[in-house]
């Protein structure tokens, strides 16, 4: 393994990400912040939502932001780099096995997703008027879930980025990401779906469900949530599957 090449590629991505920092932040943060404000403040103060709804929002918004940052942070550059310009070619020719370039993409996406989560959670807390009770009592558990969520997001970004062409980015949003967010249990706990048993079973294929429920379980344990051991197990299995599939697609796409 050639760490020098690996780190150089990571610093290249960091360099480019820094250049696109402002639009990137707008793209991933604005939407959840607006949502937090409208649902957590406007509707609550208007009496249309109960005060306790605020407690649900912070982990949910954090899960969505991490998911979108990881997916977008890996998939969008990858789609562009594999397009006509073949910008990725120079890195494929570096003296390092090409699978490591995919690993580098995952690591870069994880760092972005974790950073976005670390910014959006306190920001949402401020928007909500600092009243909500968020606990970080079990740091190891929180870190483990956050890292698994970040990894899942960027591994998903790798798989999507290697499976989708430039012309299909619109479809990616409307057909994949939008339903994932709506049925991701980010704005309501999974147990709230009990009235719709079929939907409740179907959403279990959605990785965001485990991200939301996991973060909810560790940050706001008093809100109903899935068993955390189960969540961690499913996240781990999904990660392994996404990484294996993503690497496979990446290599197929990279070599003619």
């Amino acid at each position, binding site marked *: 393994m*050639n760490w*020098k*090449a690996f780190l*150089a*590629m990571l*610093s*290249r991505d960091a*360099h*480019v990400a820094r*250049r696109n920092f402002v639009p990137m932040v707008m793209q991933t943060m604005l939407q959840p912040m607006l949502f937090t404000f409208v649902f957590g403040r406007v509707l609550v103060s208007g009496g249309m939502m109960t005060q306790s709804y605020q407690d649900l929002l912070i982990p949910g918004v954090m899960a969505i932001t991490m998911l979108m940052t990881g997916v977008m942070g890996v998939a969008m550059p990858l789609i*562009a780099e*594999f*397009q*006509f*310009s*073949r*910008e*990725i*070619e*120079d*890195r*494929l*020719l*570096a*003296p*390092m*096995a*090409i699978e490591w370039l995919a690993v580098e993409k995952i690591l870069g996406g994880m760092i972005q997703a974790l950073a976005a989560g670390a910014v959006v959670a306190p920001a949402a807390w401020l928007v909500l008027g600092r009243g909500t009770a968020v606990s970080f009592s079990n740091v190891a558990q929180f870190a483990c879930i956050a890292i698994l969520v970040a990894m899942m997001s960027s591994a998903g970004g790798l798989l999507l980025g290697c*499976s*989708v*062409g*430039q*012309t*299909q980015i619109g479809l990616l949003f409307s057909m994949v990401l939008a339903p994932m967010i709506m049925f991701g249990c980010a704005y309501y706990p999974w147990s709230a779906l009990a009235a719709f048993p079929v939907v409740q079973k179907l959403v279990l294929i959605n990785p965001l469900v485990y991200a939301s429920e996991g973060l909810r379980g560790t940050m706001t344990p008093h809100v109903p949530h899935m068993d955390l051991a189960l969540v961690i197990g499913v996240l781990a299995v999904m990660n392994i599957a996404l990484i294996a599939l993503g690497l496979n697609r990446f290599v*197929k*796409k990279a*070599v*003619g």
Partner: protein
Amino acid sequence: MTASIRTRDLRKVYDSPAPFAAGIAGYSPMGTPGPKGKAKKSEVIALDGLSLDIEPGVIFGLLGPNGAGKSTTVGILTTRVRPTSGDAQVCGIDVWKEQVRAKRLIGVVQQRPNLDFSLTAREILSFHAAYFGIGSAERAKHAAELLERFQLSSRADELVRGFSGGMMQRLSIARAMMHNPQVLFLDEPSTGLDPQTRLLLWEIIREYNKSGKTVLLTTHNMEEADALCSRIAIVDHGKTIALGSPTELKQSIPGGYLIRARFSGASETLAAKLRQLPGVSEVNADGGGIDIYASRGGPLVGAVVEAASGAGLDLLDVHISEPSLENLFLHHTGRSLRQ
């Protein structure tokens, strides 16, 4: 001494359109568009048993018409295209068994420009060298030298998406030289360069070669091959059809001179008559057009005219060319490069 580049019976069969081209044209997320049966039919044999031996320290030219398999050969030797069968070695290392070791030895300029559009020219060179583990002080120094050499210093700190085609081409070549590779692959390096810049490039390639490095370049330009290469292979339909130094190859053309003549009609008897003329070594007739390979040029035209009037035909047009790689190419492939 081990050959710098060695291929044995390379075959490459592409069985679907290029993956990224398909991604744009088609609408299917998972690769090949259309029904599976259809995709099978579009099998293309790009290489059909290509073998090459290239000694260290030469400038080797790969010549061939469009679609001959030049870029595919370069792609296989540079880990970018997986061969269907056959061996490819660079400096004794099997490219497909030890990819990372092979990649350390090579520098590549691909036919399609593939610069990193998110970076400036200087950053492109610097990051490239960083991928090869070169320290930052040395990177900065070498990048500045190459930018100067390729006359890009004044634009060095601009994003390359604003560069002209020729500037991108120059930067791609500079990038491939950044880590001083033992073997440099240049796939049509002079496309898009103005005549003056082309001369500059030739000078740079010769200089690079003088330091003991091997260069493999592909080109359609006979003048370029003649001026630069010490050995040439002509490929067509994925096979080598001629191999040697430019001088050897030119001497191998029957006769040397080529007289292309057009008559008012076709006649087999005329062709047969022309074959009898002294100094004529080969006659290829195709309708009213006849190619005559001969050991003399102008002095033969009188005899050709006479033969034509004897067959009841008029000479409409005649063109004489001296021994050249252009004629060699025409002789071997039946196609002119200029067409």
